[in-house]
């Protein structure tokens, strides 16, 4: 139940992010989730998209530095304590989270999680009967 997240290295240059979204739009790639992490000099855009391989190819052709990173996307009820439950499980299993981003809307909450030990994350969460999204689910979100 691993999902391919698109990671893009972006230099701190005006218009660079717009260029990225333009290419995705032109290639008919839908973005499910997106986050931008920034340092003083550069940014890292991480996205869950509908067609990651196609997006990667299009972006690379346009000169972007793109990688595919395996992440887990957990689906949970939009109510207090849902995310805490997931993190508690990971902590008990002594799994470190490298980064995560989450969003909730109309009764459903989603958390994208990255860890160096991503297969274990998926396994552990599934053992605890948590629902993980697969690549094919993404259009239905």
């Amino acid at each position, binding site marked *: 139940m691993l999902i391919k997240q698109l990671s893009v*290295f972006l*230099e701190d240059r005006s218009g660079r992010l717009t260029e990225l979204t333009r290419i995705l739009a032109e290639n008919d790639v839908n973005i499910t989730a997106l986050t931008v*992490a920034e*340092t003083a*000099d550069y940014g*890292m855009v991480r996205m869950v998209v509908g067609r990651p391989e196609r997006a990667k190819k299009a972006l690379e052709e346009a*000169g972007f*530095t793109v*990688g595919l990173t395996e992440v887990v996307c957990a689906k949970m009820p939009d109510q207090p304590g849902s995310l805490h439950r997931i993190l508690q499980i990971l902590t008990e299993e002594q799994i470190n989270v*490298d980064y995560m981003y989450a969003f909730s809307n109309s009764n459903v909450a989603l958390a994208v999680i990255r860890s160096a030990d991503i297969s274990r994350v998926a396994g552990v969460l599934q053992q605890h009967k948590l629902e993980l999204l697969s690549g094919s689910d993404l259009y239905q979100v």
Partner: protein
Amino acid sequence: MIWNPQRECADRQQMQELQASALQAMIRRIYNHVPFYRNRLMALGIEPGDIRSVEQLKLLPFTTKTDLRDNYPFGLFTLPQSEVVRIHASSGTTGKPTVVGYSRADIELWAEVVARSLTMAGIHNGDTIQIAYGYGPFTGGLGLHYGAEKIGATVIPISTGNTKKQLQFMTDFRASVLACTPSYAAHLGESILKEDISPNDIHLRIGVFGAEPWTGEMRREIEKLLHIKAYDIYGLSEVIGPGVSMECECQCGNHVFEDHFIPEIIDPETLEVLPDGELGELVFTTVSKEAMPLLRYRTRDLTRLHRTKCDCGRTLVRMEKCLGRTDDMLIIRGVNVFPSQVESVLMEMAETTPHYQLIVRREHNLDTLEIRVEVDQQNWSDSIRELEGIRRRIDHNIRSLLGISATIRLVEPYSIARSEGKAQRIIDERHL
């Protein structure tokens, strides 16, 4: 194979006798035909007959790039224009270009030293040489060209630029040798990866690279990218162009064709001649050239000379790979910095590419150095922690090598302009 064993393997005494008689004739020529030199020699009270040995070179005056500019364009020619068959000029970044002239015999001499160079790298009749040096007033293209034809190789005179066409010719014409600047070689190597060309379609076996300083680490990177053995060819238009010195298979420095170009190493401050093995500025006296011989020309290149025996059998003196030109050297907060030093730090790290740029600024009367480094497209991480780790390691390694701190900025692959001629490694915004 050795192209001219009689000259390239001459014993020291033979070589000195050869050099002495050529030097005497050269001094007579410049004294009689170049007012600039006659005045210089007369001012020192030196008559052409006074100089009888190479040992006496140190008594003679130097020639500098400024002298060439002052005598622009043809003031240092010994021959009337009717006997000059070719003119080359190097683009001066500031002011006038440096102009050099060649007689018919000079062109023949140039082809001879380039033929020796190519043979030294193991290139022979049957090889196909893709010459991706610029053709034109720059000496790289035509210099390699005549030498390559002389050894009977097949020449592809493609000149520089148009990477797609370079790759097409390289594969379709089965080029076995690539000659260009090392930075362009690296660029072509990357383009092969990018275009997904199969290694089976590339038939290169040897690279002849020069015209800009490069490090051993960059050599290994290019060799790995192109699956070749890479050789350094050294030259400068003032002396003749490429073919002043060349690396043999031992790769323990470049053999200088000292029967035509006598090298010396001097201290750039005191101008005293330094013994073999000491680092200093390289100086050449061109004893055979007809149209524009130069006496003790200061190259501004920093290197060392070695005369210990070379396993290849050649007795020619060797010069180390140049550390850089005295005018490439940056003085940042009083510390001498060569781009080649930065390059060697980057090349030792797997996560970076040889593409970098140094930007020097002066803020509040303090010099600052920024080093832009492209992240490696094949080998990068989406983890900011790891990228920052790379940045800190570059920072640490630069500081421990240079003794000054720099701002390291990671930039996107291909964001630093690729050179088709010489790479622009330095942007100095201090306007000193």
